């Protein structure tokens, strides 16, 4: 099964929609509750990162009997130093984004903690692709 969602940068009132729809689908598929929670938490952080940091993006969720693979691909400023971005507490979030409660610099570490595999590739001034895998 493959699901795709479009995400618009700056659209905080719809942030989290993709994650909550994916949660419903995974529940219907009777996937283990603990795995669902990890997947949707990682997905939510990735979804919000597109909203907070990029222009627009597409999220693809592939589900089979073996794993759940999520690809978050955006057009945006990209990440100049991925290792630095992965550090807990590092954030370039704007004051407006911080006012909403984002910008703790914990999103990428949360994604890493809740997935079995995570890979980021990024090109400055073009965009970022994050791949997340949870094995079933």
């Amino acid at each position: 099964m493959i699901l795709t969602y479009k995400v618009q940068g700056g659209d905080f009132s719809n942030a989290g929609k993709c994650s909550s729809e994916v949660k419903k689908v995974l529940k219907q598929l009777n996937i283990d509750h603990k795995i669902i929670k990890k997947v949707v938490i990682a997905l939510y952080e990735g979804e919000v990162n597109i909203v907070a940091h990029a222009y627009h993006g597409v999220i693809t969720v592939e589900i089979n009997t073996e794993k759940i693979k999520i690809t978050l691909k955006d057009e945006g400023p990209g990440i100049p130093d991925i290792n630095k971005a992965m550090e807990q507490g590092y954030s370039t979030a704007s004051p407006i984004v911080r006012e909403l409660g984002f910008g703790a610099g914990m999103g990428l570490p949360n994604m890493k903690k809740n997935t079995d595999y995570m890979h980021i590739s990024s090109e400055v001034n073009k965009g970022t692709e994050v791949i997340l895998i949870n094995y079933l």
Partner: protein
Amino acid sequence: MKVADILKWENTKILCCEESIANIITDGYVSDLLSDVIAHANENMAWITIQTHKNIVAIASLKELACIIITNNNIPADDLIEAAKQENIPIITTSMTSFDTAGKLYIALHY
């Protein structure tokens, strides 16, 4: 304790989802940083915050929290209440500060 027990506090009221006041509260978490809540809050916790944007509902729902308590007389946006109704997350507001709310909750849970 249950969400219903909080509603007995002074200057504290529920704005939505009274059908969920039987939700069990086992613990609490105080934070205004959303990713911090994602990292550290757990199921059945009451989340104490001054945040009023509807994003907090999505987080409470993903983490399966018992309720959100918005402190310091902060008033949530209308679209937050709409979202909370869909996700069945009780939204409680209080005139108390986060510190006082956490203290009261702690005593109710542990004494």
